[in-house]
Structure formats: structure tokens, C-alpha cells
């Protein structure tokens, strides 16, 4: 079978109808991972035994129950920043090279309860700091569309896994675009949820007031299915919100006729590649043909988004990274002769360059005498950007723009220029600043590389985002074009 074409709903139907068993499917994925992972470097850990055991359990369950949950027996990949009980979790950093957590993240716990088959843990930028996976302590992941290109990041491994057909779906995390941007660059669907919609418990924190877990899938329908499974109040995360979780799939087929969509004028500004602009223009036509009313608007305050983001996020990072001190877990320096050296040497030896860079940025922004000028000011910008979005959503159902200003770039081309790399998030990070939901769906190709369309919705209105994305997807062919993998 061609694994690249499998979706959650197709796999569910096939398992339920006994076309193939979960074990058979899982084994095929494991075989393909063996074949292709060497060149693509998608998985850092492959959990063959767990996967087969979980698949068996689902198959056995199916013998007794004719109806199993839609996610039961469906093989998935988990970003290695999400804590999995008894399965090595590195956050793609050398400091956690041998960390085996004694507890489970709420996200994986909820998916396990639905019968998830976990294939393994996927590569990302170390601690999710980056937009290319080049900051991983375990080497870059290659883009399945062109192995000389980055897959985007930080959830590059998760996006590449789905694009390459090495998982039916995957889980990523999004702090400034880390689900959507790699989804765009790998030609798959990536959904960033409203902050507070799904639990952060067990997500190794990058920036706690921005981080969200979310699905990377083949189709919008699959994204809706996974979103529903991982969402909802969690007593272990005090920032989750007690709102009912709708059955998102129910609303997918509703018409988007009359939906008011704002097209961000900045989509056609400097720094946006020509091919990306063309794809966005064509997407607008598709949406209009479906009856949506598209109006171009400008949100000038968003230009301060990146600046505010790169003060607030490193501030939280510098704080969240304090616990990695070599005392209780992770790399412990054997050169240390004092407690002070134990902490500084362990960090110095094992943390990656970008991690150190962000710790320094954050400590600077939070230090006394600078706090007001940096952190506090950026927090005010955050409020302004939030309000800007709120005002826009008084008039519109959704906002559209490119997910990324460029298609996948060459490995190494930006790694010495952190500022250029930070601009990869220019359309995605304002969404995290506001904490609202947004999806990236495939919307064309430029230079034989996928382009993503970002659809942004208002807080806790994932439903509308899915609805528009689904309508667009079902009236285009982009999600049915797959990369060719070279079997060496």
C-alpha cells in the first residue's frame, strides 16, 4: 500500500473493515522508517516494540468490539519535545540525551486512550528554538520534497514524517509558527490551536504563554479529528480553559458562502517570494468561487510582532531553561569540582548555540534596569496586537495570508544569520502573540516546493478555521500531490 496517501479516516475505515490490521500497517511504517530515516533524519527514537504492542491491542480489541475510536490503531509520530512515559525524550538537545521521563504528557495520554500507535519521537530544533530543525543537537531533518532543503521548524521532523508517509499523522508544538511553517514547507496541514484549548502538561516548555500542542496531518478532516482528541480542560494545566470541545468534523462540510475573509495586504509585501504571492492570489480566487467575500486589509501593528516576540519569548525561555542544571536529570558534567561548576559546566557543555543565545537574550531583557524598556514594553505591544486582531474579527470571520514568506530554503543558507531565520515566522508569530487559532493548508507550489496558506480565526473558533480550510482543500488538488522518496 502507498503509505503517503493514507489519512486517519482512510486508515480507520480500512482497519474497521479489516482490509488490513493495525499491526500490518504499523509494520509497513516501521519498514519504511528503516528504509528512509537514514537520509531524512526524521525520527530520533523509533519505538518499534511499543508500536507493535499498541497495534496488537487495537487489533484484539476490534475482535470484540465492532466500533473502535477513529484514532485507534492509527500510527503517529510525536515531536520529541513532548514528554512520553518510559520513552526517551530529548527535546532534540544533547542535555537530555538520555532522559527517560517517568510521566506522560496530557497530549499523548489522551491520544493513547484513543488507541494511538506511537511510531517514535521526531526531530526538531533543540527545545523548539528555530525554524529549520538545523538547531537540533542530533542533525538537521531533510525535506522530503528536496533533501537539500530544510523541512522548516521547529516541528520539522513531525511535518516531514507526514509528508514522507512515515506516519499517518503527527503531533507538533507551535510557539511562533513551529507547526504551521514546517507544515507549509513540507506540503501538509498544520493546526495551531487557541492558547488554553489543549494542555501544555508534558510539553517541555519553550515560552509558556505561547506554546500550544497541535496536529500535523494530510487533510483538514484529520486535523479536526486530532484536535478534538487532544483538546479540553486539564487539571494539570492551570491555563487550559473550561469550554466544551465541539465535534469539529460535523461542521466541515458546511458551505462557506458569505463568510467574510480578510486578506492581509502585507502578504504581498517585501520579503515575500513571488511564487508565494502567486499561490495566495490563486487561493483567494478559489475562496471567492466558493462564495466567500474576501477583502484586503492591512494590520500595520503586526510589523512589531517579531520584535515583541523576540523579547517576550526569550525572556520566558531563559526562565524555563533554568531547571536544566545537571542536578536532577540530563547531562551532568564530570569536570565539575563545585556545585557552581556542576551547574555551569553541565549547561555549557550540553546546550546548543541557539539555546545559549536565547538564554542570554532573555536574561538581558529581564534584568533589572532593562525590564521596563524591554519585557514590559513588549508585553504592551502584545496587548495592542491582541486588540488589533479582536477588532478585525468584529468584521471578519477569518484572516488569510501566507504561512511562510518563502518556500523551503537550502540547508545552511540561513544558519549563520539568526535574524534572517527569525523572519521566517513573520506571518505566524503574531498569531501566537494573540493566542488565537490558525491553520496552514497546502495551496500550491513554487520552485517545485510546497506553499502554505494560513487561515487565522478568532479565539476558540477552531470550527470556522477548519470549515474554511476544508472547503478550500476539497476544491483544490494540492493535498493529493506527494513527494517522491529516493530509495537508496
Amino acid at each position, binding site marked *: 500500500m502507498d503509505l503517503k496517501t493514507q489519512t486517519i479516516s482512510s486508515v480507520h475505515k480500512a482497519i474497521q473493515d479489516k482490509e488490513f490490521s493495525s499491526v500490518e500497517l504499523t509494520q509497513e511504517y516501521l519498514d519504511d522508517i528503516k528504509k528512509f530515516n537514514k537520509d531524512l533524519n526524521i525520527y530520533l527514537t523509533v519505538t518499534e516494540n511499543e508500536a507493535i504492542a499498541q497495534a496488537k491491542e487495537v487489533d484484539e480489541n476490534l475482535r470484540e468490539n465492532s466500533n473502535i475510536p477513529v484514532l485507534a490503531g492509527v500510527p503517529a509520530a510525536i515531536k520529541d519535545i*513532548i*514528554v512520553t512515559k518510559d520513552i526517551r*525524550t530529548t*527535546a532534540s538537545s544533547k542535555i*537530555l540525551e538520555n*532522559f527517560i*521521563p*517517568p*510521566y506522560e*504528557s496530557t497530549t499523548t495520554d489522551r491520544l493513547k486512550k484513543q488507541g494511538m500507535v506511537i511510531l517514535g519521537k521526531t526531530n526538531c530544533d533543540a527545545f523548539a528554538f528555530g525554524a529549520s530543525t538545523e538547531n537540533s543537537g542530533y542533525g538537521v531533518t531533510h525535506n522530503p520534497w528536496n533533501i537539500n532543503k530544510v523541512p522548516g521548524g521547529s516541528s520539522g521532523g513531525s511535518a516531514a514524517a507526514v509528508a514522507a508517509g512515515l506516519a499517518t499523522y503527527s503531533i507538533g508544538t507551535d510557539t511562533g509558527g513551529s507547526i504551521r511553517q514546517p507544515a507549509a514547507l513540507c506540503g501538509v496541514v498544520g493546526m495551531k490551536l487557541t492558547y488554553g484549548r489543549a494542555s*501544555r*502538561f*508534558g*510539553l*517541555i*516548555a519553550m*515560552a*509558556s*504563554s505561547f506554546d500550544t500542542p497541535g496536529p500535523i496531518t494530510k487533510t483538514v478532516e484529520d486535523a479536526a479529528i486530532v484536535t478534538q482528541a487532544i483538546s479540553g480542560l486539564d*487539571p*494539570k*494545566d*492551570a*491555563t487550559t480553559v473550561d469550554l466544551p470541545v465541539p465535534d469539529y468534523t460535523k461542521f466541515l462540510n458546511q458551505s462557506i458562502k458569505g463568510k467574510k475573509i480578510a486578506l492581509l495586504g502585507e502578504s504581498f509585501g517585501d520579503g515575500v517570494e513571488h511564487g508565494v504571492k502567486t499561490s495566495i492570489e490563486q487561493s483567494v480566487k478559489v475562496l471567492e468561487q466558493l462564495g466567500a467575500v474576501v477583502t484586503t486589509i492591512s494590520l500595520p501593528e503586526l510589523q512589531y510582532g517579531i520584535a515583541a516576540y523576540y523579547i517576550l519569548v526569550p*525572556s*520566558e525561555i*531563559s*526562565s524555563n*531553561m*533554568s*531547571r*536544566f*542544571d545537571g*542536578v*536532577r*536529570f540530563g547531562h551532568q558534567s564530570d569536570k565539575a569540582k563545585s*556545585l*557552581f561548576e*556542576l*551547574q555551569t559546566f553541565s549547561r555549557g557543555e550540553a546546550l546548543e548555540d541557539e539555546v545559549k543565545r536565547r538564554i542570554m537574550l532573555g*536574561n538581558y531583557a*529581564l*534584568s*533589572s534596569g532593562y*525590564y521596563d524598556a524591554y*519585557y514590559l514594553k513588549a508585553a504592551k505591544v502584545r496587548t495592542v496586537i491582541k486588540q488589533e486582531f479582536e477588532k478585525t474579527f468584529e468584521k471578519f470571520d477569518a484572516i488569510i495570508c501566507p504561512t511562510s514568506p518563502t518556500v523551503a530554503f537550502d540547508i545552511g543558507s540561513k544558519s549563520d544569520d539568526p535574524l534572517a531565520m527569525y523572519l521566517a515566522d513573520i506571518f505566524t508569530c503574531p498569531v501566537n502573540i494573540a493566542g488565537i487559532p490558525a491553520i496552514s493548508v497546502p495551496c500550491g507550489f513554487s520552485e517545485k516546493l510546497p506553499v502554505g496558506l494560513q487561515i487565522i480565526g478568532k479565539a476558540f473558533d477552531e470550527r470556522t478555521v477548519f470549515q474554511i480550510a476544508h472547503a478550500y482543500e476539497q476544491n483544490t488538488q494540492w493535498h493529493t500531490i506527494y513527494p517522491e522518496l529516493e530509495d537508496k
Partner: protein
Amino acid sequence: MSKYTPIIGLEVHVELNTKTKMFCSCSAEHFNVPPNTHTCPTCLGLPGALPTVNKKASEYCLKIGLALGCSLLDNAVFARKHYAYPDLAKGYQLTQYELPFCVNGQIKIGDRDIRIKRVHMEEDTGKLQHGNHQGKSASFVDFNRSGVPLVEIVTEADFRSAEEVEEYARKLQQLMRYLGVSSADMDKGSMRFEANISLIQTEDDISNKILDDSQLPKYKIEVKNLNSFKALAGSVKHEVKSQAEILDSGKLPPQETKGWDDIKQQTYSQREKEEAHDYRYFPDPDISPMNWMTKEESRLKSELPELPWDKKSRYMTDLGLSEYDASLLIEDKNLAKYFELGISDCHSELSEESQTPESKKQIAKKLTNWINGELARLRNETSTDISDVKIKPSQILQIISLVDSQKISGTNAKLVFESIFTNGGDVDTIVKEKGLEQIQDTAAVETAVKNVLEAQPKAVADYRAGKETVIMFLIGMVMKELKGKGNTEEIKEIIKKII
């Protein structure tokens, strides 16, 4: 008179006695518990673990604030205070910084109001222990205490003497126990002090004056980790003396952090690696700002018990007790409870008309005399906690009434009291069994007096010669003859009559 006035502010940490920790559901018990058994990913600071707020601990903090006359803020925020130390699991402590639970209270010390700046909630750290591991010296960290709820109570620099500081500390300890929020046991580290001490040189007497920040001295010395009233008062006294000497020599004492040496009875400089801490405070993004407090203020207030100082003034005004007696009774809330049980028992027994304020005061005074006299003596001798005392307040009332109606003598009343204190039992039975009823038969008393006078001619002669105190000896001898069952007043009258 010293030309310097001490300016002292106090920070007190109180460990709450909640069942669970501040931000996770681990047991908060950490005294005499095997190391690292009360821990979880959250209090170990493992990657991806998150805090959730202990509502009960928060309410305890609010109650302390309300008892100290503080205002509650509409919006309170937990902040992260960063510093690196192996016993600090997350590399930051969760505490309240700009927006604490409670602000601007006061407490009466002597006849002055000491201002309470803030009362806020935070978490304790783990504990570092040094020892040996495989033959090498090693450090161990126990995280059982990590995340245990702590309340910090901060005063303005309003204290002017070690005595005031100590009175405040004792009052706070008493308050914690009245509120039932902490054992406030200093030997277990449940209550710890930090004092900020400096001296001001001024012509005026400012011992009763509140100073604003601009009037405070240009330096201050912080003494940390004071774990007893003695260490607290001692360190203040020692600092006052040594700072005065430095100032006398024309220098300014250097701004520093000190510790207290219990053996040498002096403070010492604590050299710290990092000169100035920059804690890089910012609001904790894992816990949303809290805004439920003022909504629950009236409920929390209604749940406060009568506070020790209110109780004391009630005892003095309503029950006519002296300040000394009232202070002794309120020292321990269970003793006050014991006393009040007696008061309410006698109210239910007394008839309506006899319940005049005066009779109430008389009973209260007699009951107090027993509690602060015999009971205190016996409890002290036998180290008995008030909750383990066998004699009931109603039994003390019974004894009082037997003495008042002259059914037993004061001496025998003490025997009855001690017997019940030691072995339990009821008053009437013991009086009967031991034959302690006072003799009502005057002829029998007269016979006894005559016998004694005959046997003691010298004493009789001395008395007649004007040595009147001898009568006490004679009364004693008669009592002995009557086996303690006589009435001293009656005996005295008969002796006087016969001689």
C-alpha cells in the same frame, strides 16, 4: 541615653500546615520523612511539568493577612524569582512580587501600631545535605520540602528595640496557632525570621515616630535564618551595639547579609559569591492572574476565630481580669478555650437573676486563679498539655462552690484538685472518700482548740505578750487536730475568744 535609635524591619516566613504542597498534590510533610519520597515531576522541576495553585494554602495566606488588618488585592500574580542553587528545582522560586495577596496591615506592639507592608504566598525549596558517598565527600538534595507552602509577612521598618521585635514575633506565632494555619514551631523550621537593622542618629526622640523611606538610614544590615526568639532578639541587640561602635568611629557600616552564631551569641558576615542578586522577576506564565480573593473576603473574615488580642481585651473589659491574668490565659488558644468552657458552664448553671456582671466577674476571677495557679503549677511540674488535662473546668467550678459555701477548706480544695488532676474522678466522691467535709460542729472545734492551747503553753504566752502572728501557728495546729476539715476563720475566732 544612646544617641542612636534602632530602625528595624522584619520578614517572617511561616510554613503552612496544609496536607499538600503549594503547586502539586504531593504530601507537604517533610520532617522525618525518607528523602525524596514526597515528590513528583512538578516539585522536582522536571521538564514539561506545570504548577497548579493550592486554594487552601492561598486561603490560609489571606486569613493571616485579614487577621493582620491587611487589604486584599483584586488581582494577585505569582512571579518567578530566579537564582541558581541545587535545592531550587526549577531554577526559580514561585512567589508574589508586585501583586501579593495582602497589603497594608498593622499590629499593635506595646501601644504602637507596627505597619505590615505585605503578606504573600510562596514556595519553600528543597534541602541540601552534605555527607559522604562512596568514600568521597558529597552533597545530597532532598526535595521533600520543595514546594511546601510558605507565607511571608513583611513589616515596615517600624521597630525600635529588640523587645518590640520579640513581642511581635511571639504575637505572630500565637496568631498562626489561633488561626490553625501553621504549627509555627521554630525548632522544625516552620517559622523563621530575617531582620533588617540599621541605626539612625537624631536629636529628637523618634521611638514613637513612623518614618518614611526617605528618612531611613543610608545602609541596612540583613540578618538571615534566625530560628528562635532568642536568636532574633540576640542578633538585634548585637547589631545595635556593633553598628553603634562603627558609627562612633565615623564610618558607615557596610551593607551586608549576616548570619547568627548561637554559640558565640553574635552575628557574622555571610560572604556570598554573587555580590548583588538580580532575581529577574517576571509574572509566571503558567498561572493566570488570580482575581477571586475579594469576592471571598467576607466569607474568609467570617471564618476567622476571635483573635488573641481581641480575646485579651474582652477578658479584661467583660470579665474584669487583670492584664497579667488575661495574657496568661490567651497565650495558648486551647487554654483560653478551657477557660471559656468554664465560663459558659457556670453561666448555664447560675440562675438568671444571679447572672449580674459582678457575679460573672467574681466567678471569672476565681476560675482564673485556679487555672493560672494550681493548674499551671501542676501542668508545669508534670509537663501536661492543656488538652490532656483530666480535671474539667466544671469540676473547678464545683470546687469553687464547695469552698464558697464553706463545705471544704481552701487547703482541702487543693487536695481535691490535685487528686482529680492526677487520677481523674469526681469532686463529691473524692470529698466523701477522703473525709474532707468541713466540720460544722462548733463544740468539736472548741474541744480541739482547747486541746491545742493546753499543749502549747509557750505559744499562748507569746500571743498574750503581744506576738500576734503566733495565732497562725495555733490555727495550723488546730487544723492538724481536725485533719484539715476545720474552717480557719472559725478557728481563729474561737482561739481569740478563749485566750
